[in-house]
């Protein structure tokens, strides 16, 4: 059976973070040299990594030249064949966050909102001109503008260096991805106050038809999703352990459980400590939400806890991998179609 082909960005804002993220998930990508466009993941044999331009990845997956990939949600929404084979497997990987925004020249003092822009577009029209908007996101931008009642505009397709378009004179305004707004500001552009077309971050996408047709690919995908999901979840949880004096395991457990919300997701594990100080100690262990940590520590202190330690879990699993279950749902849906 064929290997699972995983497409990763070969350049751009997601290139570095995507590799770092996979490494943190225990999926270190081993690339012989930065000039090679293929690589492997030693911890997961059977996966061929293909480095592709970030903007091409959704298309590669639609076309079937890759099975799954990591790209920006914005690129996916803009370029994938809607209702086709490609689907999102994990929409919020927590990096590569940015917004697609509509921005006008600073000097357009009269235009601060989409309503102003709608007004101006009509005036342009009456003068026989069209508002020219430079963007790489024609689908998302034209839909958003139409929904706001802005019908008269021309989209100027441009890739890279959009911010210069108004100064160079080939567009009046731009719609582009922006993480902090700094580049826009430095180029004399200002986002409209209601000009966010969509919010984006890195996502895992895949070709549902190809995955459904190949058990090996599906099983490797499950392994990747398991790691990603449990790694992401682990960021929200911590493991707390402490020693508490008591009479029996049940009695200690009862004391801890008196504050149910501070007693771990599934309750504490309590076990005897074989100590030589003449006291009866019990070790208590539980997994708690990171946001609850200090309150949990206080709770254990109040019970006379000592040797309280908190450690980070690398992965936290649930009974099922939720994103994989979701994928199976999508595969069934595709099949029914």
């Amino acid at each position, binding site marked *: 059976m064929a290997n699972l082909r995983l497409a990763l960005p070969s350049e751009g804002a997601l290139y570095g973070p995507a590799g770092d993220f996979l490494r943190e998930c225990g999926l270190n990508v081993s690339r012989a040299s930065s000039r090679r466009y293929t690589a492997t993941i030693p911890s997961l044999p059977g996966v061929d990594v293909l480095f592709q331009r970030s903007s091409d990845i959704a298309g590669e997956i639609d076309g079937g030249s890759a099975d799954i990939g990591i790209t920006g949600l914005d690129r996916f929404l803009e370029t994938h064949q809607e209702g*086709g084979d490609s689907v999102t497997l994990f929409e919020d990987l927590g990096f590569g966050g940015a917004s697609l925004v509509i921005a006008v*020249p600073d*000097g357009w003092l009269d235009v601060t909102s989409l309503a102003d822009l709608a007004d101006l577009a009509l005036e342009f029209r009456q003068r026989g001109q069209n508002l020219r908007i430079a963007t790489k996101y024609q689908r998302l931008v034209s839909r958003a503008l*139409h929904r706001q009642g802005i*019908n008269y505009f021309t989209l100027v397709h441009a890739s890279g260096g959009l911010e210069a378009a108004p100064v160079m004179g080939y567009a009046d305004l731009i719609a582009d991805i922006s993480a902090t707004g700094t580049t826009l500001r430095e180029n004399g552009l200002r986002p409209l*106050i209601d000009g966010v077309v969509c919010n984006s971050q890195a996502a895992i996408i895949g070709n549902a038809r190809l995955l459904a047709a190949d058990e090996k690919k599906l099983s490797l995908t499950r392994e990747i999703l398991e790691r990603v999901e449990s790694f992401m979840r682990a960021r929200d949880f911590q493991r707390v352990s402490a020693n508490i004096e008591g009479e029996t395991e049940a009695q200690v457990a009862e004391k801890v459980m008196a504050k149910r919300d501070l007693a771990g997701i599934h309750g504490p594990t309590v076990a005897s400590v074989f100590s030589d100080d003449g006291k009866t100690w019990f070790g208590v262990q539980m997994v708690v939400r990171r946001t609850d940590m200090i309150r949990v520590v206080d709770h254990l202190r109040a019970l006379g806890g000592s040797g309280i330690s908190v450690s980070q879990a690398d992965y936290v699993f649930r009974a099922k991998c939720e994103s994989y279950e979701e994928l199976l749902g999508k595969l069934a849906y595709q099949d029914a*179609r």
Partner: protein
Amino acid sequence: MVFDSIKKLPLLKDYDAGEWVRFHQASEICRTALSERGYRRIDTPIIELTELFLRKSGGELAAQLYSFTDPGGYEVSLRPEFTAPVIRHIVETRQLGHLPLRCEYSGPVFRYPSVDEFNNGMSGSFTQSGAELIGSGGPDADGEVISIALDGLHRLGVDSPTVSLGHVGIIWDLLMQMDLSERAQLFLINCVPMLAAGDKEVVSERASQIGLLENGEAMAMRGTSTGASVEQIDAVLGHSLGSSYSGSLGQRSTDDVLRRLTNKIKTKDSPEAVQTAIDLLSKLSNISGNPAESIAQGRKVIKGASLNDENLGILEDIVMAVEKAGVEANDITVDLGLVREISYYTGVVFDLKSGDDQVLGGGGRYDSLVTALGGDRETPAAGFAYNMDRVIARSETLKNG
């Protein structure tokens, strides 16, 4: 060599032999019923210049167009509805001298679904059958259109169909009375569906976001990220008097920017007036039910805002005309929050519903569309259309073929 199988496009659907018969029968039932009333069937191309649908329809419908450049270099779209093509045909073939005209049609229309609609299994096309009465205005013409629309549903086998009436002219009139800027009027009318759904908070939030709920000075003084600061105005103004402004303005001149900025500040709506309008529309758009009661309630709300409620009389006349045209009083409700998503309507608007309250179609009066599409005279017009896919699914006689 083995080839991949080719699938149909994901958003479109096939009709099998049984379904084709049902659609054909339904179309014939409509044609027969309408021809008895003097309506003649016409057909227009499935593809039209995109401009036809942008000129007046706009909004959501524009976002749903299947648009592309044809091999000859024309910007075209698959028709999302029939009204604009029918009016285009009548203007183009110089029939405006022979009014009134009664036309009817039946065929596929194409609307690319939004993400939500897509997830709910909405198709990218459906069959529309409908009729237009061009060159007749007034309540009696509205009555004719609405009564034949309901009569058609009866003949198509829909159990106890009803009509729900609204009137966008009334809402426009109230906004005019409140002396609001065009910008605010447009914003508010677009918010009526949201207000009718009870989302007044969201509307207020949006209004303040785009500066409708703050005064002109505050707007002008706001910082660079949201409005024009005094320094910025100075920078542009100062340069416009002497040397040219160093920043980029695209195709625009400094005079153009300043003219519009001054105009924007001058025509700035008072935040109180905008808030009053939101409150009024929120109350009004939640009134629906029995016509007499709803209109009485509407009058109370409008008078409560010290505005002229005369226009509600027009709606009263329309309800009477619909009854006179043969529609049972029980089958008519009034919904003051009804504004249909197509923006060319100017007067009465209505939803056609099945007994179990599913919307099967609708229509309304569009008195300014003819001139907007190049007609040389003001021509009142109204029409309706059914979503035949929904009608057939609800029809006792057609659904099982």
